[in-house]
């Protein structure tokens, strides 16, 4: 793929005293539990390969201990791998010397943290300015950018407060504004919304999606919540015990899970709320689609299921935003998808 932004290539991370030795065992097929028991090393990541597309949101999902936070920290090298490569725009991050790495972190990546990691001794304005101040930018330039992003995340009026005075949701908006102020093309979000209440989490997800529609950054988003993953991910990778179980489009993960672990994961998802008409339609191939109940390609099943039940149409016609017919659905297909 030509538009790969971040390429993670056979990445291994083993924690312990002699990771290089332990790596050999892992390559011979020793599992996580055995490695810990017999060799006293912790397997963090094993043979991870992901191509993250430019300007997309790549979700990395897994339960705690699955290695997802370890993985995201390899992209800006907060953690050094045991083996493997991390390429950003084709250049190997692991080859950078200290100064180049610093520059890379300043201008190419910005990170949002699970527990916000705001500086308690700095005001909101200072927190948001942090990245640019570290770069030694001019004061008025810093102030302009910082105020712009404080406004964008809806925190104007709070510039002179300290983080402790803000609620969790507001603190994470500061975290988001701080990351965006750096104007980087890559945004790393480590369980950024996991510590928030469900309602506030939904707000933050919407803020992120709205911003993404405008900014088109390459976002790597870590979460343990499948609903969140399905909502914001353009693609989803599922990690378990440091191994990547499946990577693909949300709909593929949902409808054709490759492993038992993934299928257990997606079992309880309310599909009508997650799947859109375009995900399950049959592409139009010249057949007559003039008769039928029209739905928009981006409508969730949930939003038109009542009409299907009431009108009992023979065919559901899927249209794009220009009202052009692009595919069709039968009610049989619909019930299959929902039953599965």
């Amino acid at each position, binding site marked *: 793929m030509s538009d790969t932004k971040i390429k993670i290539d056979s990445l291994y991370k083993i924690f312990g005293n002699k990771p290089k030795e332990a790596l050999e065992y892992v390559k011979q097929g020793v599992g996580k539990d055995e490695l810990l028991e017999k060799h006293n090393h912790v397997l963090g990541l094993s043979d991870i390969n992901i191509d993250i597309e430019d300007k997309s949101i790549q979700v990395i999902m897994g339960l705690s201990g699955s290695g997802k936070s370890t993985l995201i920290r390899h992209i800006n090298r907060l953690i050094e791998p045991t083996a493997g490569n991390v390429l950003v725009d084709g250049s190997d991050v692991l080859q950078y010397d200290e100064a180049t790495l610093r520059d890379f972190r300043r201008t190419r990546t910005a990170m949002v943290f699970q527990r916000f990691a705001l500086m*308690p*001794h700095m005001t909101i304005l200072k927190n948001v300015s942090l*990245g640019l101040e570290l770069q030694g930018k001019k004061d008025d330039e810093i102030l302009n950018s910082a105020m712009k992003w404080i406004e964008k995340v809806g925190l104007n009026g709070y510039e002179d407060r300290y983080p402790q005075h803000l609620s969790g949701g507001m603190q994470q908006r500061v975290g988001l504004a701080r990351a965006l102020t750096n104007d980087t093309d890559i945004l790393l979000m480590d369980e950024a919304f996991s510590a928030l209440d469900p309602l506030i989490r939904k707000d933050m997800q919407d803020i992120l999606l709205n911003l993404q529609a405008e900014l088109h950054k390459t976002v790597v988003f870590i979460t343990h919540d499948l609903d969140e993953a399905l909502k914001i991910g353009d693609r989803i990778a599922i990690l378990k015990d440091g191994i990547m179980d499946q990577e693909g489009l949300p709909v593929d993960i949902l409808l054709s899970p490759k492993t038992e672990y993934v299928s257990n994961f997606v079992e309880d998802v309310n599909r009508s709320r997650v799947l859109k008409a375009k995900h399950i339609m049959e592409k139009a191939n010249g057949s007559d689609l003039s008769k039928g109940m029209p739905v928009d390609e981006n409508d969730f099943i949930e939003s038109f299921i009542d009409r299907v039940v009431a009108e009992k149409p023979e065919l559901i016609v899927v249209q794009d935003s220009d009202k052009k017919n692009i595919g069709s659905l039968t009610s049989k297909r619909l019930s299959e998808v929902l039953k599965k």
Partner: protein
Amino acid sequence: MSFFSEIPTMGRESLRDFKKGIDLNFKEFSRNYGDGIEGFFDPLLMFLVWLEKLLVNSPWPLVILVLAGLAWIGSRNWKLVAGTIVCFMLIGYFGMWKDTMSTIAIISVATLVCISIGIPLGILMSRSRKLEAGITPILDVMQTVPSFVYLIPIIMLLGIGKVPGLIAVCIYAVPPIVRLTNLGIREVDKECLEAVDSFGATSWQRLTRVQMPLALPTIFAGVNQTIMMALAMVVIASMIGVRGLGVPVLRAVSNQYLALGMLNGLAIVALAIIFDRVSQQYGKRLQKHREGRNL
């Protein structure tokens, strides 16, 4: 069976030679380098003498005004300022003004010396586990060795006077600030450090923008402890020629002057309480961001 009744010793002869050897060598060392070392401390001595003269020679209302002003700047508390003024008036009324000024001078200089050595040392310690493991036992020794024991080499090297007194005070008073600087920096939230790293901070930026500000309350607790320990050394320092409130206390001990000892002792206590309260209040004010939620 004498093995069980008498512990093996190295023998009187060799023990005497051993001690003599050390003494002679150290004497030799101080003959050769004593002057040089003394010269090294000259600027410090000049500063101490200058400060002492300034405090003693300035008109007393001015001195009290400045001290009260400092108390206000530190604490923003009228009661403390009033207490400070009353204490110094009483100290003057009971004829201890000059000695008190001398004591303030040496405490101030000692504290400055301790801060300028202790904070950088604490920072270095916080950056390397090996250095921490090496320095911690030295600090333990400095705090536990009876001060009279390290007075001996200091006197041999530098004789009697203000500088050896100052050094003795500093040896005793510097450990807390080193320890608490190290502790404060090590206690800084790892997530804050990770965040500042992720934004590409240099290690200097990391230190000055995150580690030091967040460690400041703990470091300040160290400064407070250092001041208190310096005050505790006032009497011992007076034995080797430091002027101040310790001198009359020493005289009171040797002549059984109860009232003189009590009065000067109380003056030291008064200074301690004022310094402690003011510096604690100041330390609290440094943590403005920790004030409760007031959304």
